[in-house]
């Protein structure tokens, strides 16, 4: 509804759309952003858009992981472009896994299901399906049970699976799952209050939620981190709040950090509406005096080179192979639970995959609607984003919000009450800076439910 309303209002205000143009690079220098470079899918042409100000709303990066609720288009493009251009990314270690994705598909079964009274069950609990009796969450969070925060429920599901109590009992978090039981709610509640969820279960899993439990597993859902911005959506170039003139971002690509280390359900849309608007207002103010900046004589040279290499370089590596390897290693080693060993393996694997990415070749030579080429470019973005996630997670030696280190299970406010800023420092090197967390009304405290 929000998306359609936005589209309709854009039509009303005669906003000019460049449909199916993929932005692949941003033109930034030491002071400001001067536009973007985009690839036109219909023609294969690379176009330069010189601009006084640019706003990024390119969304998250769910496709870094093998199980995700996110669209195929969500490949972290905006974050990767900024990172490549030497800008920092903030709090990339904080990735939200929603506890209830449809098994294998990752399609979201929203909180509404548990809000109405849905109960999670493991394999030892099958007799209780339809009874309305407590499931395994009752022991984890005795007061709120199945309505505990997303990160806690996701971890609880992983614990069940690891202990061999997943429905298949394989103990493999990649393939095993638990049940979401709605049966006791009855046909009326399920059909009238949970129409989307029951539609998904029926359509995609051929499961009838009125009589059968729904197989679910945690699914990569939301990026708390991203391009650091101030309250007016201005992108910051360092941890000292220096803005990049004319560069704005809001939504999932940005990290204004209203969600801290763990977003609460429904808050993303609030974030978008509030900070999208604030950024727009500040942009109009900025545009009143801004001048077109100086751009490189060949601002599209890098992108043209990349396209040329991918199409004509004769590379033998396959996009899908690398993508699947990345998604697997990130899901299993940089996912719901993390530790130093796994994160090191994840980081090293991503660095190897980035190396192999240079040998990727695209078979399709056509300039028109070359979706294979776009997918290859998106893989490059995904790998860079995956790298920043693994590196940021590796250095944060504590557990906070959605970032859960088995080897450092406690929150450590003394050392880690700060935001991570990661910047590219070389081909395979990153640098970290930190920014203190501003705490106003709500003091951090242990979460006990």
């Amino acid at each position: 509804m929000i998306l359609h309303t936005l589209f309709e209002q854009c039509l009303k205000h005669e906003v000019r759309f460049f449909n199916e143009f993929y932005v692949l690079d941003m033109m930034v220098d030491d002071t400001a952003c001067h536009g973007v470079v985009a690839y036109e899918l219909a023609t294969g042409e690379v176009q330069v858009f010189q601009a006084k100000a640019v706003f990024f709303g390119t969304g998250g990066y769910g496709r870094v992981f093998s199980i995700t609720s996110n669209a195929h288009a969500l490949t972290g493009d905006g974050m990767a472009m900024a990172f490549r251009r030497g800008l920092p990314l903030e709090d990339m270690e904080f990735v939200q896994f929603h506890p209830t994705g449809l098994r294998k598909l990752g399609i979201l079964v929203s909180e509404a299901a548990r809000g109405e009274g849905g109960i999670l069950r493991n394999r030892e609990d099958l007799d209780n399906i339809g009874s309305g009796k407590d499931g395994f969450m009752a022991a984890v969070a005795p007061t709120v049970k199945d309505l505990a925060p997303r990160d806690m429920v996701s971890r609880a599901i992983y614990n069940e699976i690891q202990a061999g109590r997943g429905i298949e009992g394989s103990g493999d978090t990649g393939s095993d799952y638990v049940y979401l039981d709605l049966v006791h709610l009855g046909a009326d509640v399920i059909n009238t209050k949970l129409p989307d969820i029951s539609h998904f279960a029926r359509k995609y899993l051929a499961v009838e939620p009125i009589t059968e439990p729904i197989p679910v597993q945690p699914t990569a859902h939301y990026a708390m981190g991203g391009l650091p911005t101030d309250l007016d959506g201005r992108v910051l170039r360092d941890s000292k709040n220096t803005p990049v003139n004319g560069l704005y971002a809001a939504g999932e690509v940005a990290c204004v950090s209203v969600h801290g280390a763990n977003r609460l359900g429904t808050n993303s849309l609030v974030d978008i509406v509030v900070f999208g608007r604030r950024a727009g207002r500040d942009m109009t103010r900025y545009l009143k005096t801004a001048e077109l900046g100086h751009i490189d004589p060949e601002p599209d040279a890098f992108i043209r080179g990349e396209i040329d290499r991918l199409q004509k370089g004769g590379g033998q590596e396959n996009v899908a192979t690398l993508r699947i390897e990345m998604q697997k290693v990130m899901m299993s080693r940089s996912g719901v639970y993390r530790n130093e060993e796994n994160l090191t393996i994840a980081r090293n694997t991503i660095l190897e995959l980035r190396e192999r990415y240079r040998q990727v070749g695209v078979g399709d030579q056509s300039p028109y609607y070359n979706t294979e080429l776009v997918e290859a470019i998106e893989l490059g973005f995904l790998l860079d984003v995956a790298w920043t996630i693994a590196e940021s997670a590796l250095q944060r030696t504590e557990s906070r919000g959605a970032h859960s280190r088995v080897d450092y299970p406690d929150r450590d406010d003394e050392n880690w009450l700060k935001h991570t800023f990661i910047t590219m420092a070389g081909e395979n090197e990153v640098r970290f800076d930190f920014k203190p967390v501003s705490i106003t009304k709500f003091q951090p405290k242990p979460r006990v439910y």
Partner: protein
Amino acid sequence: MQVTVEIYRQDAETGASRFDTFIREVDPKDRVLDVMMEIKDQDDGSIAFRKSCGHGVCGSDAMMINGINRLACQTLIQDLKGSLIRIEPLKGLKVLRDLIVDMDPFLASLQKVTPYFIPKTTAPVREQKQSIAERQIFDDTTKCIMCGACTSSCPSYWSNGEYLGPATFVKAHRFIFDSRDGGDAERIEALDDRDGLWRCHSIFNCTDACPRDIKITQAISELKRYIVARR
């Protein structure tokens, strides 16, 4: 199970077309979109089709699958009742390459019915309340994802590309029956026209094709009645 997948191919430059055939081992619960992506990943990367959300929300992967318009992401192999899967682009829209069609005329048609909210009053209001019953009247038509499956299944649209088509009527319905909206006049002018509502012969193809199960033909007859009553 083993399936034979026949995919329509069309060269973007020459317009030459053919079907490519792929034999795959699949799970009956696999979705057609997953099978297509696997073919693209493993057999032929050059197959061009649109996709994004992967669960029936964005409307980008409407195509003709075994003769019926549907979303590839929402169609399971077992829904097709057989081992032959034939995938073709939506009819009535120009094919740009393989399964990618030109959606511009579709969007242009939408524009003709002023497809945005026009407040009844000009006074600044913070919030305009609506009862549940008022909202129910047009709830069904708010579900449209503009995938084009309906319009491109309509014989009236195939024979005349100027015809506004069912998706545009759905959008018009969403606003005309919204108690807060005051933009009837402009919309009705476009609807009550040679290329508007009266070209609809209630063939029901659109209703059958809609992946959101919107009762499109019913919405169209509600619009027809509304316009006649206003005359």
